[in-house]
């Protein structure tokens, strides 16, 4: 699907801004149409906040029952959970609506997407943008702040850098999983739930230290899918605590690299999916 010649035929005198302006307008339109349903909107915000609060409450409840998890204390695990939650909330905000691909394929609306001079993925991300998800991001930020307050961190420039970069890079890792998972719809429209195992499963995985898991399962999720880099290694770096599994501490810097890798793979999977759709109809 070579869209290389996209710019070649824009008429001289097109004064409506660049491609970015097109996406921005679509985004603004989506936000406006969402806020039409004000009561539903409010109810949505409240319930999504409650849902993500549940993750943290779960961690707290577990620590009522045990003093340590995978060799880490409650406050340390809270830092990991909070970082994971922030990364996930960010990615859910940006990319979470790509799950709607199933709906678009089933109703034939994906064809309408293909008939516009914009990238299909770009349109999908913007069309169903859900502003209510910003609530969760704010909430996650607050929880992270509290978690960091409860632990003793020896702050340095490096640590601050990791703190800022990790949630962003981590959200890109989640985003890649979201996109790759949604792509399943191009082949099996009914199996949407499949992706949940890796998107929401990934979120649960990253909430707890990797030392909790073992065997091929850990290898698959932590290293194969790169989830260990979302919160675990960066948290180890922040907390200055050695890895019970023996990995070096500088792996905390690996998150952006893994994110880049993940995005490349997701982009390839997406392209393959669209190509498959265009060769078999639906």
């Amino acid at each position, binding site marked *: 699907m070579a869209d290389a010649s996209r710019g070649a035929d824009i008429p001289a005198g097109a004064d409506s801004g660049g491609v970015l302006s097109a996406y921005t307008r679509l985004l603004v339109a989506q936000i406006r149409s969402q806020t039409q349903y004000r009561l539903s909107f409010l109810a949505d915000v409240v319930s999504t906040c409650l849902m993500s609060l*549940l993750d943290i409450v779960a961690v707290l409840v577990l620590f009522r029952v045990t003093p340590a*998890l995978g060799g880490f204390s409650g406050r340390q695990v809270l830092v990991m959970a909070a970082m994971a939650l922030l990364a996930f909330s960010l990615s859910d905000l940006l990319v979470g609506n790509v799950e709607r691909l199933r709906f678009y394929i089933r109703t034939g609306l994906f064809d309408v997407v293909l008939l516009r001079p914009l990238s299909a993925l770009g349109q999908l991300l913007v069309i169903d943008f859900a502003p209510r998800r910003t609530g969760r991001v704010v909430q996650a930020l607050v929880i992270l702040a509290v978690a960091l307050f409860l632990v003793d961190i020896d702050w340095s420039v490096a640590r601050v850098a990791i703190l800022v970069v990790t949630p962003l890079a981590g959200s890109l890792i989640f985003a890649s999983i979201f996109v790759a998972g949604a792509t399943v719809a191009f082949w099996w429209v009914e*199996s949407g739930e*499949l992706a949940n*195992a890796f998107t929401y*499963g990934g979120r649960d995985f990253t909430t707890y230290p990797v030392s909790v898991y073992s065997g091929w399962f850990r290898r698959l999720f932590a290293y194969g899918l790169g989830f260990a880099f979302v919160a675990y290694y960066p948290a180890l770096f922040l907390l200055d605590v050695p890895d019970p599994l023996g990995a070096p501490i500088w792996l905390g810097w690996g998150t952006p690299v893994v994110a880049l890798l993940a995005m490349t793979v997701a982009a390839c999977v997406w392209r393959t999916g669209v190509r498959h759709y265009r060769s078999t109809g639906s």
Partner: protein
Amino acid sequence: MGLDVRAFLALTSAGFRRWSTYRQATAAAVFTNSVFGFLKTYVLLAVALGAGGAAVGYDGPMLVSFVWLGQGLIGVVMLWGWTDLADRVRTGDVVADLLRPVNPLWTYLAADLGRAGYATLTRFLIPVAVGLVYFDFFLPTRPASYALFTVSVALAVLVSFTFRYLVNLTAFWLLDVRGVMLLAQLMMGALSGLYLPIRFLPDWCENVLWYLTPFPSMLQAPLDIYVEYGGIGTQLAIVSGQLAWVVVGFTACGWLQRRAAWKLVIQGG
């Protein structure tokens, strides 16, 4: 009740067959349930380890069984996603249901039992098999436990059905039932023992849930019976509790449905 045994069985078998056509969705659900099974098992095993071998009376193997049977039962008990009645209320088709000489409560129940039957063959057996293969499963020491477990699962399906039915009935009064559904799903998930055993919560919390809400009867109950938590006395108490909730549930459904039918007749829907 207007429905004889043969008709009831016919409806049940129809429900079974309907759900057996959702092959892809069932396969995807089984896969997802299994992955989450792995996640939860590892976390809870680490909890048990950190607590010195057992947490609140649950040791490793007990927790393993708790998780995998729980994952298997999600599909059977159907903790979320049932909107059949609410959909029909929204489109107005429910009038046809209420005009029939049979109480729709029983027809929907029959269909749901059919669904639960299909789910038992697929969404229950497969995750349990996976858990058995990969982990150290707890096996009940008393044969009575198996029988009580089966009874408890049946009761759990009934309790869940009545609760879901009640939530769907609110569609008669609320235009947009999505918010209530979301809240109901949240509660059913969190408070029934799906995320973690309820006994991990503080005592007061636990007691409020057991005695004042039907949620533990939907999932935690059969699981606790299986792992023989507390002995035969506790098992029997749990089953009695479930029975009580079944009675309460059906009574509430019957009452609310009469009010709904009344509203339809008086106000014209």
